[in-house]
C-alpha cells in the first residue's frame, strides 16, 4: 500500500499532535514491492509485500529517544510517541543535537511513473518465461530476478517542515550458465519507467556472454590494462570502499586525510577528466531528493576535473566546520571530455582484459581505499582491437583512488544508469573505463 501525500501527512499530523517533547521528527515510509525469481530455467519464488513503517525521534532537554512501529492505528502511533519520549528522558544529553528543520524548499524529483506501479502479473510471468525459453533454445541455464518497487517517504518536524516524495523502480537481472558450468554471463538494468526496461535485451546480453565465455583460458595473475564495463565500475563505486565522509577525513581516518591533520580537499587526486558529482535530479537517475530528516539534497561536485572539491557533511559536522550540509548523495561519475563507447575502447586497445562485473568487494585498507574482490560472469582478452578469447576469473586487490588516479585512466565512456550487481537496486550513473593498470593478485577457479 503506497501512501499518498495526504495520507502520509495525516499520519505525521497525528504523531506530532501527541508529541509533548521539545522537538521531534517523524518519518513515514510506505512500500509496495513485488518480485519474481527464477533459476535452473524454472520459476522459484514470487511474492508481494506491502507495509508502512513510522519512526518518531524526540528530544527533551536535548536528550534523544527514538521508536518505530508498523502499526498505524491511532493507539499504536500514540504508543510510539510515548516510547520515544520515555527513551529521551532516560538518555544522556545528545551533544550533537541540532533543532529539527523548519520549512525547507524542495525542488521536485522525477522518479515516479504510474505505469510502473501497475506491473501486470501475467505479463511479467510471460516476459520471464520468454527469457527462459531463449535460454533453453541456445541450451544455457537461466537464473534471474525481476522486481518492482514503489516507495513513498514523508518526513515532518515539530518546527513545521513537511516533505513527501515517491519513487518507482522496476528491474531485471539475469545470469546464464552453460550446462557444463564452463561459461557464465550476466546482465542487469533497472529504471523508474517500466517502458524503459528492455527485458528481452537483458536476457539476450546475459545469454550471449554465457555462450561467449566458453573455453576460457587461465592467464597469470598480475597488473593488466583493463576495459571495465559500466557494471564493473558501478560495483566498485558502490562497494563503500571509498567514503566521502567529511568527518572521517577531518578525524584523520580516511583516504581523504593527510598527515598533519589536513584533508585532501583542494588536491588533484584523480585524473583531470574525472568528475564525481551528486545530482538526484539528473533525468536518467531521478532519486530521492531529501534525507529522512527532511534535509534537501543539493547538486554538488565531490571531484571536479580530478580535484577533490568537497566532502559530505552531516548537519552537525557542517555546523562544526562552517560548511553546508550535504543531504543524500546520488552519485555520477562523468568525464570532462566526450565519452568513448566500449566498442571504441576495444577497437583501439593494444592489449586489455574486458571485465563485465566484480563480485564480493570488501574493504581491505581504508587508508588507501583499497578493496579486494573477484571478476565474474565474463572476462575476455583483447589484443590489437579485437576480442581474442575468454579468460578465467581473477581475484583483485586495488585502490579505487589510485585506479582513477592521474596516469592510470586511459579512456572514459558515456555514463549509463547501472545498479551494483551485488544485491544493489539504487542506481548510479557511471561510464565504462579503460585503465592502464588493474591489479589481479590471484587466479580463481570459479565460473
Amino acid at each position, binding site marked *: 500500500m503506497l501512501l499518498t501525500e495526504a495520507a502520509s501527512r495525516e499520519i505525521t499530523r497525528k504523531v506530532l499532535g501527541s508529541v509533548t517533547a521539545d522537538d521531534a521528527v517523524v518519518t513515514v515510509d510506505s512500500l509496495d514491492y513485488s518480485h519474481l525469481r527464477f533459476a535452473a530455467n524454472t520459476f522459484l519464488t514470487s*511474492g508481494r509485500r506491502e507495509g508502512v513503517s513510522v519512526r518518531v525521534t524526540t528530544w527533551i532537554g536535548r536528550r534523544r529517544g*527514538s521508536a518505530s512501529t508498523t502499526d498505524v492505528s491511532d493507539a499504536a502511533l500514540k504508543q510510539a510517541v510515548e516510547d520515544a519520549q520515555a*527513551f529521551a528522558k*532516560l538518555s544522556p544529553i545528545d551533544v550533537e543535537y541540532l533543532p529539527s528543520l523548519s520549512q525547507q524548499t524542495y525542488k521536485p524529483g522525477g522518479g515516479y511513473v504510474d505505469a510502473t506501479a501497475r506491473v501486470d*502479473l501475467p505479463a511479467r510471468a510471460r516476459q520471464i518465461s520468454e527469457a527462459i525459453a531463449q535460454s533453453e533454445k541456445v541450451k544455457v541455464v537461466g537464473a534471474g530476478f525481476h522486481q518492482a518497487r514503489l516507495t513513498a517517504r514523508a518526513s515532518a518536524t515539530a518546527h513545521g517542515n513537511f516533505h513527501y516524495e515517491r519513487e518507482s523502480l522496476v528491474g531485471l537481472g539475469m545470469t546464464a550458465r552453460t550446462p557444463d558450468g564452463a561459461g557464465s554471463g550476466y546482465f542487469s538494468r533497472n529504471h523508474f519507467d517500466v517502458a524503459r526496461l528492455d527485458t528481452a535485451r537483458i536476457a539476450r546480453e546475459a545469454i550471449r556472454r554465457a555462450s561467449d565465455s566458453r573455453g576460457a583460458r587461465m592467464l597469470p595473475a598480475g597488473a593488466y590494462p583493463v576495459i571495465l564495463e559500466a557494471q564493473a565500475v558501478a560495483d566498485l563505486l558502490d562497494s563503500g570502499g571509498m567514503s566521502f565522509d567529511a568527518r572521517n577525513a577531518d578525524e584523520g581516518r580516511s583516504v581523504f586525510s593527510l598527515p598533519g591533520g589536513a584533508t585532501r580537499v583542494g588536491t588533484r587526486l584523480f585524473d583531470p577528466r574525472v568528475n564525481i558529482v551528486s545530482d538526484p535530479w539528473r533525468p536518467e537517475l531521478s532519486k530521492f531528493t531529501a534525507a529522512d530528516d527532511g534535509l534537501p539534497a543539493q547538486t554538488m561536485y565531490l571531484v571536479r576535473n580530478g580535484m577533490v572539491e568537497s566532502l559530505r557533511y552531516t548537519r552537525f559536522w557542517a555546523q562544526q566546520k562552517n560548511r553546508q550540509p550535504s543531504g543524500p548523495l546520488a552519485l555520477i561519475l562523468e568525464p570532462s571530455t566526450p565519452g568513448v563507447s566500449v566498442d571504441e575502447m576495444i577497437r583501439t586497445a593494444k592489449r586489455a582484459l574486458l571485465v563485465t562485473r566484480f563480485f564480493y568487494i570488501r574493504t581491505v585498507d581504508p587508508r*588507501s581505499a583499497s578493496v579486494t574482490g573477484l571478476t565474474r560472469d565474463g572476462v575476455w582478452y583483447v589484443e590489437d582491437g579485437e576480442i581474442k578469447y575468454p579468460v578465467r576469473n581473477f581475484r583483485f586487490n586495488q585502490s579505487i583512488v589510485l585506479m582513477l588516479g592521474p596516469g592510470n585512466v586511459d579512456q572514459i565512456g558515456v555514463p549509463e544508469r547501472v545498479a551494483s550487481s551485488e544485491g544493489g537496486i539504487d542506481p548510479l550513473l557511471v561510464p565504462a573505463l579503460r585503465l592502464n593498470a588493474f591489479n589481479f593478485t590471484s587466479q580463481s577457479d570459479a565460473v
Partner: protein
Amino acid sequence: MIRREFLKAASTAVGAATLAPWLLEREAAAAAEVDAVKSALAEAALTRARVLGASYADIRINRYRSESITTREQQVQNVARSQDFGFGIRVLVNGAWGFAASSVVTADEVRRVAQVAVDIARANAAFQRKRVTLAPVDSVTANWKSAFEKDPFDVPLDDKIELLLALNAIAMKTTGVSFVNSSMAWVNEQRFLATSEGSRIEQYLIRGQPQFNVTAVNRESGDFQTRRSFGGPQARGYEYMEKYPWKAEVQQAADEAVAKLKATPVEPGRYDLVIHPTNLWLTIHESCGHSTELDRALWWEADYAGTSFLTPDQAGKLRFGSPLVNIVADRVQTTGLATVAYDDDGVPAQRWYLVKDGIFVDWQTTRDLAPLIGRKTSYGCLNADSWGSVPFARMPNVSLEPGAQDTSLDELVAGVEKGILIYGDGSWSIDQQRYNFQFGGQTFWEISKGKVAGMMRDVAYQSRSTDFWGACDALGGRSTYQLNGSFVDGKGEPGQVGVVSHGCPAARFRQINVLNTSVSMT
C-alpha cells in the same frame, strides 16, 4: 555532562521513570487471548487459500522487537527501539509458489492477502516448467523459547548506556587511542507458524550483538589503525554483557590498536598459520557453510550469491579437507544464532555432518530441496528474516569439531618454525563458487621457532577452500572451542539477512599464501 552526574540528576528529575509497556507486553498478559487471535487469523488465511485452490499453504504471524544503542567516546549517538509486526502467506498452486505479506494484521486483510498470494502463484503456474514437491513432515503443536537467562528488553536503558560509556572510557584512557565506538543491538523474534498440514508452532528467540571498535591515529604520519572486539553476536540475553570480560577486552583492544601503528609490516609469502576461533569462524562460514548449501549447488542462487564448487554427485566422495576436519551443521547448539526448535517449514531442529573425516558427505536442505537429491526428509533449513520475506534455504550453525586431544593454543604454536598467529575477523571476500578466498584479521603475531615473537600488520591470507582445509594438520581441543557468528549473512533475491553461529577450536594450517595489504598513497 559525564555519565555519573547524569545519573544523579536523573534520579531527582525523573524519579522512578519506567518505560511504558509495549503493546506486546499488554497482549502477553493475556496469552491465551493472543494465541486465540493468531489461531483465528491463521484459520481464516489457510481456509481462504484452500478454497482458492492451494494444495499447501502456511502463514507466519511474526513480531520483531529490536533495540540499539550506539555511542562514541563519551556521547550516546542514538538509542532506538522498533517493533515490526505483520504476516506472510505462502501458497502452492498447481506446483508453483506464491507469497504475499502485509503489516495490517486483521481477518479481512489475511483473506485479501491469501487471494494475492494465490493470484501470484496461478499467474506463474501457467509458465512453470517444474512443479514444486515437498518432502513430508509430521504436523506438530509446540511452544519454545531460546536459552537466555535475562531478557535484554527488561534491562534498564541506564545500565546498558553506563556499560558502553564505561568501555569507551577505558579505551580513551590509553595513550595513543583517538576514537572509540561501542554499541549493543538486541533482537527478539516472536514467531507463529501455522500450516495447512496442521502445525501450530510458536517460538520466542533472543539474540544480541555487542561490539566496539578502537581507533588509534598517528596525525603526524597520517596512519591509523583499528582493533574491533573479538566477542561476537550470540543467541544470549543480557547475561552475555555480565559474564563476558568486556572491560578486559577493551583494554587489550586499546593497547593493541596503538601497538599496530608500530607493528612490523608482513613480508608476503607462504607461512604456517595458527588461527584463533575469533578469526577462523568466518573462514568456516564462507568456505564450508556456503559451499554446502544445496540450493547453491543446484544453481538457484546463480544470479546473486553464486553456485558451489560442490555438486550433488560428490557427496561421500570429494576430499574436502584433511582427515582431521569434521564439519557439523546444527540448529540445536544452545547459544547458536541459527538455533530454533522448528524451521519455517515446521521441520524439527537437527544436527548432522557436512564433512566427516575430511570427506564431504551431506547438504543443507529444506522440504522443497530434499526431494531433488532423492532425500525423504528435510534437515530443517528454511528461514525468513521477516514476516514480509519469502522463506528459503538459510545456513544453520556450521562448526568445526575440536580435536580428540585437548591440545592447547600454545601447543599448536610450538609446532611452527615460521608462521603467524591470527586473532579476530577483518576483511573477507570469496568467489562465487567458494573456491578462492582472502581474509584479514584484527591482530597478527609473528611465530618464530615455536614462540610468539612480536606483532605484525597488514596481513591477509589467501587460499583455495579445499587446499586450505587440506593443509589443516592440527586442531585445538575442546578447551579452545569458541562460538562466534554473524548478524548479517546476506543471501537471496530479494536479499535477506540471516543470523548464524560457527564454533571451532584453534587450528593450524601449513604453508598458506599471505599478502601485505598496505598500499602507499605517495
